[in-house]
Structures are given as C-alpha cells and as structure tokens.
C-alpha cells in the first residue's frame, strides 16, 4: 500500500509517454491516475491516524540495511495535500495549456514530479531522499523549460544551476555523514550520532544540510533563483511548483532538524532563526517592488517560507504544529493564487501589472477567487492562514526570542500591502483602453475555474474547520519531537 503513491504516477507517466499522440487519452489517463493517487493518499492518511506510523521495507531487507519507506503523520498530511494540489493543477492544465506543450509531455512530466514529491514524503533514508529530490528536479527542469521561450530558458538555467549546486552539496553532506556514522536511515541515525564520542563534525554536516535545504526551500540568501524563474513558464507549471516544490525542501528540513541533527540544537536554532527572519522581511520587501503579478507572488511565496522555518527555529511543540499547519495552508493557498495569476495571464495575453486594470468589473468571479487567496495568505480570519499565524505568534512569545514577533508582524503587513498593490493594479480602477480580454470557450473556462474554485473552498473550509487540521498538525509535531513510533515502524523488530 505504501508503495502505491510512487507506483501510480510512475506507471501513469510511462503509459502517458506511449499515448503521446492522443491528447484525449493523455487527459483521461492523467486525471484517472491523479484521482487514484489522491484516493491512496487519503486512505494512507486514515491508516496513519490509526497506526501512528507505517513502514515498508523493500525486498524485506531488515532495516537499517535495506531501503525503508516510513509514513508518519507529517508525511501523510503532506502527501494528501500535495496530491490534492496536483489533482487541481492537472485539471487546470486541460483548460489552459497550449496543444504543443500538452503534446510534448506536460502530463507525463507532472506525474513524474508527483512521484518524486511523494517519494520524498515517504522515504526513511537520507540517500533515498537525495534520489527523490533528483527525480523531482529533473521533472521540474523539463517542465520549466518546456516550450523553450526566451524567458523560460533564461529563468530555467538559473533554476538548474542553483539546484545542481545544492544537489552536489547534498551529496557531499550525505557522503560525509555516511563516513562518520555508517548509516543513512532516519530512524537509525539519531542513535548512532548520539554514540559518537566527538559530535562537532556532525554540527558541520548539519550546516551543510541547512545550505542544501535552504536552496531547495528558498531561504534568505539562497532564494534568488525562485523569483527569477517561477514566473517564466505557463501558469499551470508555476502553480504546480508553488504548491509542491519548495515544500519538499522545508519538509526535509523539518525531518532532519527534529530527528537527526539534535546534537547542537542552540546553534542550529539561532542560525535558522536569523535566516527565517531575513527571508520573511526580504521576501516581502521584494514583493512590493515587482511589476509582474507572478513575480510578486513568487516573492510572497519566499517570504512565507520564512514563517515555516521560523516555526522550526523556535522548536516547541506548539510552534512546530503551527508551522506544519502553515505548510498545508501555504501549499493550497499559493497554488490558488498562482492559478488566478494564470487565468489573468491567459485573459490578458501576458501583460505586466501596469498595463492591466479594472478586471474586477468584467470578471468579478475571478476577482473574488483572487481576493480569497489574498486574504488567506495575509492571515485574515476566517481564512486558513489565520489560525497557524496566531499559533506561531503564541509560540514566539512563549520562546526565548519574543522580539522576533515584530518581524512576523512587519512581513505580514508588507504581504497585505503587496496583495493590495496587485489588487489595485490588476482588478481595481479603470480598464485601459487597449486592453482586450480573450474570450474563453465554456469548456476551457470550466476546466480553469473548477479547480481554482475547489482550492478556494479548501482555503475557506480549512480556516473555518481549523480544529481537526490543527489537532493533526500538533499530533504530527509531537511525533516529530518524540520519534518513538517512527523508529519502531522503521526499524521493526531488529535487534540492536
């Protein structure tokens, strides 16, 4: 059962490559595969809620020698939400994508991306995590440059270069970790590290991992590839990236800095804290200065990566739980905003924000969807961003660095300003005379608005019915801080 989130996209991708001639068959296959993936993810969620953590050892090799997959509460939550987001984006693609990109493997590549992301959420082995990162990366490289427009290749090579450097650093760090402790299994690592007489080297490795995951998740000094590249591919692609990709980096950071690198927590915490605060502030400042709607959203995305890592830096059960909730909210909400931006781009044929205006009068429904996303990302009640932000505030005030709350406040205010700016320039005010809107056929409009609406409902719903999600996030955070269930599931009955 646990292997299915990987196998379904894999087989879907393979059959999609064979179906490359028929657009209709491609669409049907990818929708069916995504539905199946979502179904499996939900049933795994149910299974985890009963068992705590479930594990699969490939080829029945006893852990820690073989490759193990373990799904805990955090993984199950991310898997389900990621699958949901992917389903929405793939539906959206049917309405918005041009025929050439559809034909040249968009669907197959997005399935491979989904496979890589699911693999990273499930794996219990740090080298295996590297492999899944690479699967995700290569799929995203191709998606990023699929179509080969000037902006795409320009954004693409920055994305590729930075991510390849991060992969190399990751590889070096994994190699040195293996050399110093002799295992790469998440459940086995903490014990082996604790048994080391001199742990200073592990601290150095932890810093290498901060750099690696910092590049992947777009932390402060390392985030510039993201706003340089995320706005260049078609709307569906950037929405898929916004929903899934950076979250994989943050997920890996949560996993490794709560379970593995706990030897020198004070140092890690202060480093991550400084990076998180700078990310929040610089991302939000960058957002205000942008001329392009999706570039603005990309900077907001970066800024909000800071909130999640801040939850990790404070490292209390409450802050981790809120950060996990925030991660779920962020995936859905950023995807919603990027899909709205995709529709805007589609309607107006890719104009900058200065050339737009007055869309609210002609496309009121789109304006409502955008506003819902904007309110949610600014953390206004009753939307999904409100609860985790309040939780994060409480956790920060209870921690040793309460003055950090000012940075959170400042960046929240800047986010609201940036969203207001986008709203003013795109939806409000008079409509420029030379702005002709593209008429969408009812079928295409349906395929684009339906997933966007579903995401908006999810953003509303998860804000109003916050209790079960919050309970799950806090249980997941407890599980991260006391990984007994994780270890028991992964290592099974192996004698030490």
């Amino acid at each position, binding site marked *: 059962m646990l292997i299915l989130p990987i196998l379904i996209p894999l087989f879907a991708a393979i059959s999609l490559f064979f179906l490359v001639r028929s657009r209709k068959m491609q669409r049907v296959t990818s929708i069916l595969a995504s539905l199946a993936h979502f179904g499996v993810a939900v049933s795994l969620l149910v299974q985890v809620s009963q068992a705590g953590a479930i594990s699969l050892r490939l080829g029945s090799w006893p852990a820690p020698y073989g490759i193990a997959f373990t799904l805990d509460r955090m993984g199950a939550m991310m898997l389900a939400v990621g699958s949901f987001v992917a389903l929405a984006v793939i539906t959206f693609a049917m309405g918005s994508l041009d025929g050439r990109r559809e034909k040249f493997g968009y669907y197959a590549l997005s399935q491979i991306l989904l496979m890589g992301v699911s693999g990273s959420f499930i794996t219990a082995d740090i080298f295996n995590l590297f492999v899944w990162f690479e699967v995700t990366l290569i799929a995203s490289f191709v998606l990023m440059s699929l179509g080969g427009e*000037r902006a795409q290749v320009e954004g693409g090579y920055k994305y590729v270069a930075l991510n390849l*450097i991060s992969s190399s650093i990751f590889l070096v760090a994994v190699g040195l970790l293996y050399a110093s402790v002799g295992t790469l299994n998440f459940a086995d690592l903490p014990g082996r590290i604790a048994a080391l007489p001199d742990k200073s080297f592990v601290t150095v490795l932890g810093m290498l991992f901060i750099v690696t995951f910092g590049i992947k998740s777009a932390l402060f000094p390392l985030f510039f590839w993201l706003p340089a590249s995320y706005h260049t591919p078609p709307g569906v692609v950037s929405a898929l990236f916004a929903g899934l990709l950076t979250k994989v980096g943050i997920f890996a950071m949560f996993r490794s800095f709560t379970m593995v690198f706990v030897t020198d927590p004070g140092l890690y915490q202060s480093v991550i804290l400084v990076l998180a605060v700078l990310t929040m502030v610089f991302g939000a400042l960058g957002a205000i200065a942008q001329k392009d709607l999706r570039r603005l959203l990309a900077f907001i995305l970066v800024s909000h990566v800071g909130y999640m890592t801040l939850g990790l830096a404070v490292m209390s059960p409450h802050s981790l739980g809120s950060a996990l909730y925030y991660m779920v909210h962020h995936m859905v909400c950023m995807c919603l905003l990027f899909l709205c931006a995709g529709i805007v781009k589609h309607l107006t044929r890719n104009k900058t924000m200065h050339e737009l205006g007055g869309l609210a009068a002609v496309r009121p429904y789109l304006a409502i969807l955008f506003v819902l996303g904007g309110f949610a990302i600014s953390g206004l009640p009753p939307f999904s961003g409100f609860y985790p932000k309040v939780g994060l505030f409480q956790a920060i005030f209870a921690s040793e660095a309460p003055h950090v709350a000012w940075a959170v406040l400042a960046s929240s205010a800047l986010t609201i300003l940036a969203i207001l700016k986008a709203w003013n320039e795109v939806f409000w005010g008079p409509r420029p005379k030379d702005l002709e809107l593209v008429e969408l056929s009812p079928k295409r409009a349906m395929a684009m608005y339906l997933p966007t609406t579903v995401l908006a409902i999810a953003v509303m719903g998860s804000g109003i019915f916050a209790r079960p999600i919050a309970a799950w996030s806090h249980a997941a955070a407890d599980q991260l801080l006391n990984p007994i269930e994780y270890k028991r599931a992964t290592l099974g009955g192996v004698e030490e």
Partner: protein
Amino acid sequence: MTIVLAVVVGILFACGLYLMMRRTLVKLLLGLALIGNAANLMIFVSAGLTRGAPPLIGAGETAPPKTYADPLAQALILTAIVIGFGVLAFTLALVRRTYQVTKTDDLNELTTTDR
C-alpha cells in the same frame, strides 16, 4: 592514496567553482560537471580505501572478513553518477536551446527575467 584523492577532490571543487564564476554559459556547464564529479569522488574517498578486500563471504563462513571494502558507498556513487549524467545531458540541451533562442552565451545578457 587517500591524500592524493583528497587533493584531487579539492582541485576539482576549486576548478568547478572558478568556472562557475565565469560569464559564459558553457563554462557554467563545465563547472557544474566538475563539481558533480568532485562530489562523487568525495563519497568514494570518504568511505575509506581498502585495497584487495572485496566484501565477499567465504565458503562456510557467516560473516565477511574483518576488513573489507565498503560496497554501500560505491553503490551510492553509482546512483549519483547516473543521476549526474542524466542531469548534465539535460543541462547541455538547455544551454544549446538558450544559445539558439537568445543568440548569446554571456550570462550578463541573460537577465531580462530579473527585471
């Protein structure tokens, strides 16, 4: 032998980073290739070099001999090499496409999306 390889790893990293600081796309690509190889070689060295001791269990034994070459590190590099090769092939195609579309390989002129 370990020292020699360690120095080689250092040189590869240095050359790779130097090439990445240059302004042409092709040098960026070469730099990435060198860094990838440096990382692979580093894993190879970090597991320790054992000469002439394959990790084989003799007939009638239940465990390998006391000293044996660690096969896992080599399995890791093998995976990493394959991945690196695939990614590099893609990057090569991307660089070619970038040159086709933009007619330049000067990185300073490839900044239109940053504005």
